[in-house]
């Protein structure tokens, strides 16, 4: 699948932002005043910045407001609705924490946290629901999206212990997902034979493409990344996304500058891994163009 920068930026940043907001809603860490302002600013900045980036890949952004209407059937619509609900429900809790004295009601913070995580879950289901992309069509996809969100959120909200444990967990799940994902396309049972129905006649192969140039389908769904590049990027992603941030949060004194550094390194790793999430995903339509399972 085509790794569109806007979608990579959107899923990475908003996931992280909602992760931070989810922790803050639980009162972890227990911040108030200026410290709370800084953290909510970061959480909202990442979440809203990501959501804005997501509109950049639309063909007709003027119709984006209509995306709130189909929440009964569409995960993309659910994501839009829940994201706005999350941002609205977190706001009064944040205002109380930053500007007022006294404790805001616990249930309000908890409701905000649930909505933040539900947003990330809805994002992941946009991909996980697609039977046409066997690599994504797996329960580990939502586990990973949620994992990155709470792990990155823990690091950036200054929780070295929890952050390290969660990063190790997500790293393990990611490695498992890579290994399972590599076999998903073959396991889907779709071949050029089933795609054309010619499998009953014999063994088909492409003789000639229907068009001499490229087209939307090939640009959008025919993207391929070399195996060598992919394994290098996986190593870089694992190093920056998990190994280094874990080392940083364990080996350094718990002060914001080190959390920020660990978070930045982690984010760089997440970008690499998210790029691969798209670039490595094969769509069954590529079978019609003579591509075989990698």
């Amino acid at each position: 699948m085509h790794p569109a920068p806007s979608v990579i930026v959107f899923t990475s940043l908003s996931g992280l932002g909602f992760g931070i907001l989810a922790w803050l809603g639980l009162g972890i860490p227990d911040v108030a005043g200026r410290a709370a302002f800084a953290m909510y600013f970061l959480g909202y900045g990442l979440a809203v910045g990501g959501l804005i980036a997501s509109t950049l890949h639309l063909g007709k952004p003027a119709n984006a407001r209509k995306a709130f209407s189909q929440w009964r059937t569409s995960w993309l619509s659910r994501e839009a609705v829940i994201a706005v609900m999350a941002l609205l429900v977190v706001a009064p809790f944040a205002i109380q924490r930053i500007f007022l004295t006294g404790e805001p009601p616990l249930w309000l913070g908890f409701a905000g946290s649930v909505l933040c995580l539900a947003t990330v879950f809805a994002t992941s289901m946009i991909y996980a629901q697609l039977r046409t992309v066997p690599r994504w069509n797996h329960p580990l996809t939502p586990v990973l999206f949620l994992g990155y969100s709470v792990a990155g959120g823990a690091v950036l909200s200054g929780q070295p212990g929890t952050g390290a444990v969660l990063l190790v967990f997500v790293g393990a799940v990611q490695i498992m997902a890579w290994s399972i994902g590599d076999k998903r396309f073959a396991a889907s049972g779709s071949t050029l034979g089933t795609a054309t129905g010619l499998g009953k006649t014999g063994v088909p192969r492409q003789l000639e493409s229907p068009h001499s140039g490229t087209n939307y389908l090939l640009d959008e769904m025919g993207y391929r990344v070399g195996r060598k590049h992919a394994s290098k990027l996986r190593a870089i992603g694992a190093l920056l996304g998990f190994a280094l941030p874990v080392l940083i949060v364990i080996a350094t004194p718990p002060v914001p500058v080190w959390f920020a550094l660990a978070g930045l390194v982690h984010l760089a790793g997440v970008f690499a891994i998210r790029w691969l999430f798209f670039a490595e995903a094969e769509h069954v339509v590529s079978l019609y163009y003579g591509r075989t399972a990698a």
Partner: protein
Amino acid sequence: MTALPEKTDKKLGLVIDLDTCVGCQACVVNCKEWNTTNYGAPLSDMDAYGSNPVGTFLNRVHSYEVTPETGPAQTVHFPKSCLHCEDAPCVTVCPTGASYKRTEDGIVLVNEDDCMGCGLCAWACPYGARELDALAGVMKKCTLCVDRIYNENLPEEDRVPACVRTCPAGARHFGDFADPQSDVSKLTAERGGVELMPEQETRPVNRYLPPRRKDASLAETKVLDTVIEEPKGLFAWLDKALEAL
């Protein structure tokens, strides 16, 4: 609402005869012509006269070679357009309500006034039936020529999809699959029409008739066999001379 109807009154669709299609691309051209000048945004071409022309098409003809277990390989031309699935995944993923399946005849359509061009429906389709138009920024797909089939301003013989009307080989047939007595239903039953990628569980309406096997006698021809077993005259001399080398 992008919920799918429980049941449609009719199931309009196409039968495509892979035995008859000669791969002339006439259906591709006529589809582009009709759908550029009629319903919705035109099917644009980018860099049409340049070195890298790219355009939107609702119907494309692939070409494959299929080799049976025994017998000769054969060429199969394979036209592909929207299959108007009963469980159309492209419809339910749509966030804006632009994509819908009609209750009356099962045609899957895009309301371009509502489409925001996110492309998720194209991702959800296993068949590559949807293409986002680069100029209009909205999703384009086969409408089964909804603006022809009910159009009383056209002579009756023209009230079929443009691809069906133009096919010089008669490889494309249009009709109602909900009616077991319709031509398309009978043709599908007679010739063992198949659905594409049944494992994707989209329940496509369109059916493909498999190519008939080539004459088995063709397979017996040994084109490169030795023509003369016992050479005589000039060939005998040449044979000897070559052996001696």
